[in-house]
């Protein structure tokens, strides 16, 4: 029977990438010099599993590579090897290399053999450097050919049965080698009254007449050679005497490379690495060599730009080819779901089915008297569908740790390349969000983190001179607020440079020469389109980098991003995202003849206009005085290009919304109830539209636009450049 085991390959790769991720985070968490045996064990087991599967499925390179890593880790866990920074760094690089190898194996593509071989040699060198590999024992050569048979004396020890072995089976197996003559020795058998059935008393002598090697005979008894007395003697045709050959220990020659060699290789490769970094097709070799070198010798000024470029290319490569553990695992198309959640779904469906049959039954012979029952039934239907919906959404929710997990490595690598000391603090990593949202927020987060490391955080000397600690802190935080998720990236670096930003903004025409923007406005310029023209080609896929792209990506997810900064103290980027892209609680409003949806989470309150509370600043802008606040009024019908039902303000209603900390009043003709709506994208078949975040299909089948409040405000600002932006606490003068 032949079994096609290639069907298990996919599962193997998935679990191997998970194993790699576990190895990486385990390695990052190891304290140098104070090994936590449990932690090392976990890392070891992961390597071991990957190796085991590789062997079974025939991936030889993976087996060989992982074997050395496993040996190193084994030595560490048994205390034979110290946990040094060098060892951890090498293992981390090896994890990367292994990841790339696994991807190449899985996708049946070529991989960089040079890089692989270098990594392998480095591992071997490390292994040989501190410790000679154990001498492998060699089985004695058997004087097999001359024996025509074997005499086997097999005397099991009394406890043999306790090992689950059975002499009968062993004898049967021996008989498969050739014809046997078996004699049983029952000398040890006690009297019946003393007989213990679980003890083995018998022994056997077997004459096997077959020309088989001794090893074959011994193999039959391989499992029990500690639990039995075994003697195997050849039956020889007389007379030549056979001399057993002497044992020859195997020299551990391949492993024994001099430790000095790798470091001699590196400087040469570094020079090549620098040259290669200029060319668009930088080799992984150069990168891993220059990266290894950087680990070894520490960055110098002149190499920094090269390394930065190769780092970026490396992380781009990682992202692209999934070379790192995180890269490969994160882009998967499957979700692990708790069985409980699935059970919950089944329950919900069950209830839905019951409600449906009830409604069907009701519709037979329906009379007006049944109206109340119908209403109840429909209410129940609504409850059931809502529950089902929540259950399904929760399946797609995953903790943000999946996204945050790539950062310890990234921060470690990048900070060491930039010559900065950075501590990474991660809070709220259990905060859950939709899987798709999380996948798409990954790149913007990476960009913001790298930006903070690059521009925000200072080098140790500058920090010390400024009276700060040499090591800077980068904090990632996530929490739920207002029906959405907030992700904050903050650092205690130098903060944004207001002067420079303003100059650049003026230069690019984003800010007029006469304008005097506030600090907050200046900082917001970094997100303006066209602000960052840095031609940093870091992605082969051509995705541009720049804050405007970050904001656009976040906006496409229905979210917002703002930056706060304090010179000398640091900066904070706050991203707000909806928990899910799919469903929204909305307030239906009528503007003119059309129905629009305003997201409920943006609405503070709605009210009827009070005469006299409206004041005009200029003939374009109006302010509404609400209690002690002044709110700019946004005439939606003008913005949306619709004919209003009435231009008399008193006939209209105001919907007060809050956007990025500021309040505005939207002018609508009528409020039409609240409901949950399914968000459908306009981009699928059309394009994104300013002021609109999506569309939905109402109960009557008509399409209604969902307003993007932030976008509306922005449109407003563009249309009326002098719309005043009053702080929330503005009072009547």
């Amino acid at each position, binding site marked *: 029977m032949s079994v096609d085991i290639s069907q298990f390959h996919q599962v193997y790769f998935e679990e191997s990438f998970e194993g790699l991720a576990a190895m990486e985070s385990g390695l990052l968490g190891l304290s140098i010099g104070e090994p936590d045996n449990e932690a090392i064990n976990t890392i070891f087991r992961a390597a071991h599993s990957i190796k085991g599967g590789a062997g079974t499925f025939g991936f030889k390179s993976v087996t060989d590579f992982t074997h050395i890593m496993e040996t190193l880790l084994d030595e560490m866990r048994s205390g034979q090897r110290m946990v040094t920074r060098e060892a951890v760094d090498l293992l981390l690089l090896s994890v990367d290399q292994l990841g790339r190898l696994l991807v190449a194996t899985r996708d049946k593509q070529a991989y960089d053999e040079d890089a692989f071989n270098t990594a392998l040699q480095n591992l071997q060198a490390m292994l040989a450097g501190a410790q000679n590999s154990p001498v492998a024992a060699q089985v004695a050569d058997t004087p097999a050919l001359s024996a025509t048979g074997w005499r086997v004396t097999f005397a099991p020890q009394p406890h043999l049965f306790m090992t689950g072995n059975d002499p009968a089976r062993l004898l049967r197996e021996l008989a498969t080698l050739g014809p046997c003559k078996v004699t049983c020795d029952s000398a040890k058998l006690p009297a019946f009254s003393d007989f213990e059935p679980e003890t083995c008393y018998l022994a056997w002598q077997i004459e096997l007449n077959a020309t088989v090697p001794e090893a074959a005979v011994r193999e039959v008894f391989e499992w029990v050679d500690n639990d039995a007395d075994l003697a195997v003697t050849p039956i020889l045709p007389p007379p030549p005497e056979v001399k057993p050959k002497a044992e020859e220990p195997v020299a551990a020659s391949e492993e024994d490379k001099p430790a000095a060699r790798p470091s001699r290789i590196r400087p040469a490769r570094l020079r090549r690495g620098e040259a290669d970094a200029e060319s668009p097709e930088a080799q992984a070799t150069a990168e891993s060599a220059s990266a290894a070198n950087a680990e070894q010798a520490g960055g110098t000024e002149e190499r920094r730009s090269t390394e930065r470029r190769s780092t970026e290319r490396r992380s781009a490569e990682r992202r692209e080819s999934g070379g790192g553990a995180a890269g490969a695992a994160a882009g998967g198309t499957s979700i692990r779901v708790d069985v409980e959640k699935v059970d919950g779904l089944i329950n919900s469906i069950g209830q839905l089915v019951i409600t449906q049959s009830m409604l069907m039954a009701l519709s037979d012979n329906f009379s007006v008297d049944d109206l109340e029952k119908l209403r109840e039934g429909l209410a129940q239907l609504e409850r059931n569908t809502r529950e089902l919906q929540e259950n399904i959404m929760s399946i797609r929710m995953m903790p943000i740790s999946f996204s945050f997990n790539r950062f310890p490595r990234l921060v470690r690598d990048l900070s060491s390349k930039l010559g900065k000391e950075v501590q990474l603090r991660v809070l709220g990593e259990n905060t859950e969000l939709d899987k798709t949202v999380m996948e798409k927020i990954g790149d913007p987060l990476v960009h913001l983190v790298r930006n903070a490391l690059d521009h925000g955080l200072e080098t140790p000397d500058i920090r010390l001179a400024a009276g700060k600690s040499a090591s800077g802190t980068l904090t990632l935080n996530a929490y739920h607020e207002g029906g959405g998720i907030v992700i904050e990236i903050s650092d205690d670096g130098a903060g944004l440079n207001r002067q420079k930003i303003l100059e650049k903004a003026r230069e690019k025409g984003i800010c007029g020469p006469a304008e005097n923007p506030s600090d907050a406005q200046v900082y917001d310029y970094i997100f303006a389109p066209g602000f960052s023209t840095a031609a940093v080609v870091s992605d082969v896929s051509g995705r541009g980098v720049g804050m405007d792209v970050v904001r656009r990506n976040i906006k496409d997810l229905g979210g917002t991003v703002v930056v706060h900064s304090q010179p000398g103290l640091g900066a904070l980027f706050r991203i707000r995202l909806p928990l899910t892209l799919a469903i929204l609680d909305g307030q239906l409003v009528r503007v003119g003849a*059309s129905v629009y949806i305003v997201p409920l989470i943006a609405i503070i309150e709605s009210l009827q206009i009070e005469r006299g509370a409206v004041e005009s600043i200029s003939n374009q802008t109006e302010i509404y005085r609400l209690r002690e606040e002044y709110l700019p009024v946004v005439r939606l019908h003008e913005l949306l290009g619709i004919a209003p039902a009435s231009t008399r303000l008193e006939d209209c209603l105001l919907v007060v919304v809050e956007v990025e900390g500021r309040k505005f009043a939207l002018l609508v003709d009528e409020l039409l109830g609240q409901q949950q709506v399914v968000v459908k994208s*306009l981009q699928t078949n*059309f394009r994104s539209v300013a002021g609109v975040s999506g569309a939905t299909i109402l109960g009557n089948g008509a399409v209604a636009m969902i307003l993007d409040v932030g976008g509306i405000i922005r449109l407003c600002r563009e249309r009326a450049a002098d719309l005043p932006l009053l702080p929330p606490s503005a009072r009547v003068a």
Partner: protein
Amino acid sequence: MSAQMVTSGLGSNAVLGEQFLTFILNDEEYGIDILRVQEIKGWEQATPIPNTPAYVLGVINLRGAIMPVIDLRLRFGFDAVEYSATTVVIVLRIKNLEGLERTMGFVVDGVSDVYNIPAGQLQPPPEFGGSIRTDYVKGLAMVDEKMVILLDVDHLVASDMELGESPEEQANTDSALVE
């Protein structure tokens, strides 16, 4: 008018890619690759999209999908007319520059017929000097002594969907058309 799915009446000589659905617009006959036609619907009121050119009538609910509807008359720069009983919406599958598929509806005066026009019968569009856009015209063909202008739908829409192009810019570049 109820929605109909277009069936391609394949003659034994038909080759894929050579069948065209023709429609009338402003007394001219235009043709489009039948493989791109998803269905033909009667016209229905669309929900307007704010701040879009006049020829973008809005979006409709096509069995749960949000589909934009374009008035092809306005798009080509002709005057608008009242919609009548023969006004139809042709639902097309459009591929953009990145190969992504979109579904869009186009309002035309009426649908004509399905013709088999082998590649050999296609004449290249004439040059009228540089001012006229010809990138969405595949070519011209004579069918039953009528001239049919064959359109390349992918190119027709691609220029529409550029992000960042203001309605004014779009109107300027699209005002001319091959006759």
